């Protein structure tokens, strides 16, 4: 046992960020960039912005998060633009709202590059240390955070702490019967902080997640697999990246499938899976099921897809996407070797499941500050989310709001109609998620408005006001916005006559002829006509950048839908604006059902909209609540 009590060294900074994963990096960069003396703690300097699971950034809805984070002034988008080795826009055959960018990262480059950014950031100090204790002052509602203590006994006094502990708190990794008490990839776990948090009245719970094996490239027969290429023309993540700078040679991924033989081996060995044997107590994510889960739950599926993805340019390690597992090593080898192309595979790192402590997020405000301890902010997987992008987005918001608190400003809270980030945080702190939370496009009610292509138009202004977006970058958005508006107005104003030349053109392109003069905008609404095609009828057309045209076309083609969603947003905003007093006594509202009352007391929602999204609170309960609130406000006046 070590004794650290004789170390009396004390430092004073503004903000301490605990953990240097994707959440911690964004939080620390944000607060340092806003001028606050910041220290970021990590158990290993080499694990800054590490990607311990899949080797990619983005994907459906996650790509949206990265775009939004970038628009607000975050770093993830810029970093992946510098370090990707393959890039793809997903869902291009579908509507613009679900187009999603996903890039394969060179994992070690990604880490190195982010580390370089952190190391060169003014006001930011990187410290390799495990935090073992949270220091607080005051009791009850005046309790506030005052600092942290490292495992070597040094105290850092500060005004705000941002917890970004990821999967490290009391982590334990399981691979069949083998259990090790480490964080991901064998890194040191953080075993002391949980107790200090609990002492401070913070409720924790246990979650679980998993990762598949990594294989030696030389042992894989790619000829038996389908090669998957990147896009010919790459779109960068960051609005600040020059699109020309990301056009480069890309590497391929490969697709193969499991088969009945694979499934037989899994079924025969289920008793050796810690999850099925009951050894794991944490709750795992349903959207990212282990191969065991897939085989058991979807027994009628004859095969499951397996994606073989490179982990970087200078490594032979390949990620086996689709086959995460916590089965023991011998079963893993047997099962992987049934897959075409993997018959002779050698495993570099075994698949494993990891369990960790995380927060019951009903303790959080929408600003990501804890309700009970002033100055304590939380972000990332610690809040019960999953995924690098979800973590980074929260990290940025926690960084912004911790900084604003220190400046005495109101927090920035994005609502569900403004950003996926708003949906993410609202869902995290309002809903009872019994598994790590992953972003999905279906979770965003107004997704037609929250496109990845218009994140800058939605959020640059906020990023600029916060102080993370430069005047120059913001000016670009302002100009873009103006060009879009002007072009939409122009297309609506230019009328094409129903003459022979026009009608011939339309018929040639499979479109019905005109009987009367029609605007270019109306023609553009026809599914068979594109903006490019219409150039023939539009000699006066100004030369516009691609991203402007993209917005113009979307806004015109889907105008009806967009309008309907805007109307829904207006309705939504009304309820959202209806604030619930912090000191409301739900026991005083007798007509509330008991279940609803318990839930409302547990979550203490900040407004009526949030209350309505708590599971177990019915529309009838909301009516009761609204009646009560209107009575109360009458009593006051």
């Amino acid at each position, binding site marked *: 046992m070590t004794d650290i009590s004789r170390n009396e060294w004390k430092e004073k900074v503004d903000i301490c960020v605990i953990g240097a994963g994707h959440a911690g990096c964004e939080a620390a960069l944000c607060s340092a960039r806003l001028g606050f003396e910041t220290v970021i703690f990590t158990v290993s300097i080499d694990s800054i912005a590490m990607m311990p699971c899949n080797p990619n950034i983005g994907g459906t809805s996650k790509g949206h998060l990265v775009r939004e984070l970038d628009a607000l002034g975050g770093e993830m988008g810029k970093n992946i633009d510098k370090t990707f080795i393959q890039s793809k826009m997903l869902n291009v055959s579908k509507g613009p709202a679900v187009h999603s960018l996903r890039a394969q990262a060179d994992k070690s480059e990604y880490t190195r590059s982010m580390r370089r950014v952190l190391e060169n950031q003014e006001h930011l100090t990187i410290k390799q240390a495990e935090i073992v204790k949270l220091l607080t002052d005051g009791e009850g509602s005046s309790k506030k955070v005052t600092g942290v203590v490292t495992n070597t006994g040094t105290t850092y006094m500060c005004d705000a702490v941002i917890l970004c502990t990821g999967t490290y708190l009391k982590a334990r990794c399981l691979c069949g019967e083998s259990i090790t008490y480490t964080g991901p990839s064998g890194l040191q776990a953080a075993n002391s902080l949980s107790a200090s948090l609990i002492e401070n009245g913070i409720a924790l719970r246990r979650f679980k997640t998993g990762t598949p094996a990594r294989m030696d490239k030389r042992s894989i027969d790619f000829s038996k697999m389908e090669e998957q290429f990147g896009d010919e023309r790459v779109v960068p993540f960051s609005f600040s990246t020059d699109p020309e700078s990301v056009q480069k040679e890309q590497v391929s991924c490969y697709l193969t499938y499991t088969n009945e033989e694979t499934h037989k081996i899994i079924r025969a060995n289920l008793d050796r899976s810690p999850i099925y044997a009951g050894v794991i107590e944490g709750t795992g994510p349903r959207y990212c099921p282990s191969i065991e889960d897939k085989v058991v739950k979807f027994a009628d599926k004859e095969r499951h897809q397996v994606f073989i993805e490179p982990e970087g340019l200078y490594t032979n390690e390949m990620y086996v996407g*689709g086959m995460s597992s916590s089965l023991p090593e011998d079963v893993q080898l047997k099962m992987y070797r049934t897959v075409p192309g993997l018959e002779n595979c050698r495993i570099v790192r075994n698949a494993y499941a990891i369990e960790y402590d995380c927060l019951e997020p009903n303790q959080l405000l929408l600003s990501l500050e804890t309700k009970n301890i002033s100055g304590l902010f939380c972000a990332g997987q610690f809040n019960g989310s999953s995924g690098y992008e979800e973590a980074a987005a929260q990290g940025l918001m926690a960084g912004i709001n911790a900084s604003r608190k220190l400046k005495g400003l109101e927090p920035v809270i994005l609502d569900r109609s403004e950003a996926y980030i708003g949906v993410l945080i609202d869902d995290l702190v309002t809903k009872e998620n019994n598994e790590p939370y992953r972003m999905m496009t279906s979770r965003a*009610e107004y997704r037609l408005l929250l496109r990845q292509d218009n994140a800058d138009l939605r959020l640059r202004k906020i990023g600029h006001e916060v102080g993370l977006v430069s005047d120059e970058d913001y000016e670009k958005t302002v100009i873009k916005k103006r060009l879009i508006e002007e072009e939409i107005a122009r297309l609506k104003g230019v009328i094409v006559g129903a003459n022979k030349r026009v009608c011939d053109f339309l018929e040639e392109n499979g479109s019905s002829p005109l009987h009367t003069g029609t605007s270019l905008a109306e023609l553009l609404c026809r599914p068979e006509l594109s903006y490019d095609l219409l150039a023939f009828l539009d000699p006066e057309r100004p030369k516009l950048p691609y991203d402007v045209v993209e917005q113009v076309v979307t806004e015109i083609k889907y105008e009806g*839908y967009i309008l309907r969603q805007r109307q829904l947003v207006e309705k939504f905003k009304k309820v959202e604006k209806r604030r619930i007093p912090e000191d409301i006594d739900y026991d005083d509202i007798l*007509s509330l059902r008991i279940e609803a009352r318990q839930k409302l007391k547990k979550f203490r929602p900040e407004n009526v909209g949030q209350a309505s999204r708590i599971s177990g609170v019915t529309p*009838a309960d909301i009516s009761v609540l609204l009646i009560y609130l209107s009575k109360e406000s009458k009593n006051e006046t």
Partner: protein
Amino acid sequence: MKSDTIAAIATALSDSGISIVRVSGEDAIKKINDIFVNKKGEHILDSVRSHTIHYGFIVSNGETVDEVMVSVMKAPNSFTREDVVEINCHGGVFVSKAVLSTVLSTGIRLAEPGEFTKRAFLNGRIDLSKAEAVMDLISAESKAGLTNSLRHLNGDLYNKIVDLRKAVLYEIAFIESALDDPEHISLEGYPEKLKSKVEDIKKETDALKDTFDRGKIIKEGIKTVILGKPNVGKSSLLNILTGYDRAIVTDVAGTTRDTIEERVSLGDVFLNLTDTAGIRESSDIVENIGVSRALKYADEADLILFIVDSSDEADEEDLKIYKHIEDKKKIVLLNKTDLSTSEERDRIRGMFSGNDDIIEISCTDRTGFDELKDKINNDFLSGRLRSDNELVITNLRQAEKLSEASESLKHVLDAISDGMPEDFYSIDLMNAYAAYGNIIGEEIDDDLANEIFSKFCMGK
């Protein structure tokens, strides 16, 4: 929000054997305890167990008001989820009103119409469609209306809507899982499949929505006008109908001074009879102001009973009226069969179109009325309602929500035929899903995520 204690007579005011006075609220037990004594003269209600019934008397200033049975149901296991006391007293308007006024004398407030139901709803005891059914029940007087209300209460509507919702949710979940995981789940060929499914769901929704008009007839009655030239027996018919089947007759003030609407229950439906008999008649019948007004009512009616005197030659006047109502839903009544021969009647029959419904009646002998009753009931209920057990929408809000759902489904079909991308389908499917949810008072919550994860295999 504390709720005060309310009371009302819960049974219809009539000369039935038993009436029930219902009391609900925080003070229900305490206050009724003050006015109720058992055989031994003791006030015992504040110490009895929930769901027990007690014999005794309602007393006021030492006088016995009535001999009663009192049941006590404590919160939350009661209809309103509040403390409820029900006083079973003797029937009859006078006695039940006396018991009620004794109850009110303790400071309990008279309930507003439907207030018990409102509390049941607000306290989460019943869902919205059930609450509305109870409200309908309160006002439904005719038997068909009553049965329909009971079907809603039993949850038939609830179950039907749940089925439709489930079907819609499955499709949304499929689309969404494909959008979220395009590399695992493909939408190739899906729009065609979805089209036929959505068409089916829309058909069912529309059918349900279309029952609303019929539902309205059941609930509100059939607007009926008796027409005919003078002295063919209009008044006699009216008198017989109002007295028929021991009808519940309520007087509803008419829209003009000279008409009275009589509400008559005939078999399983109501007739709202506009009595045009009071309109002054003159020899110049078609020019006559009263008749033109009668004809105006006829234009607005759901049903016209057109009376002809079968013992007399049908003349110009009959034909003028007939011509006016040719396109309307009508039944021709050949009256005074006691005075005419079958040959005479056949001759008159020949004057009308073969499509007309013609029934022979005699107001004097009171014959032909069962046939008339069956005819009207068949036409307005089973004939158009397909079957007696069909679920019928009687509530405007529910009908509107069904229209909304149907409209959204139409958007989906349009989007499919326009070749819109698949993610647009789920926007409108989601709206339909929400509209169904509104009918039964349920919102979306996490249904979708659960459906996606349980039905489709996703992920890395």
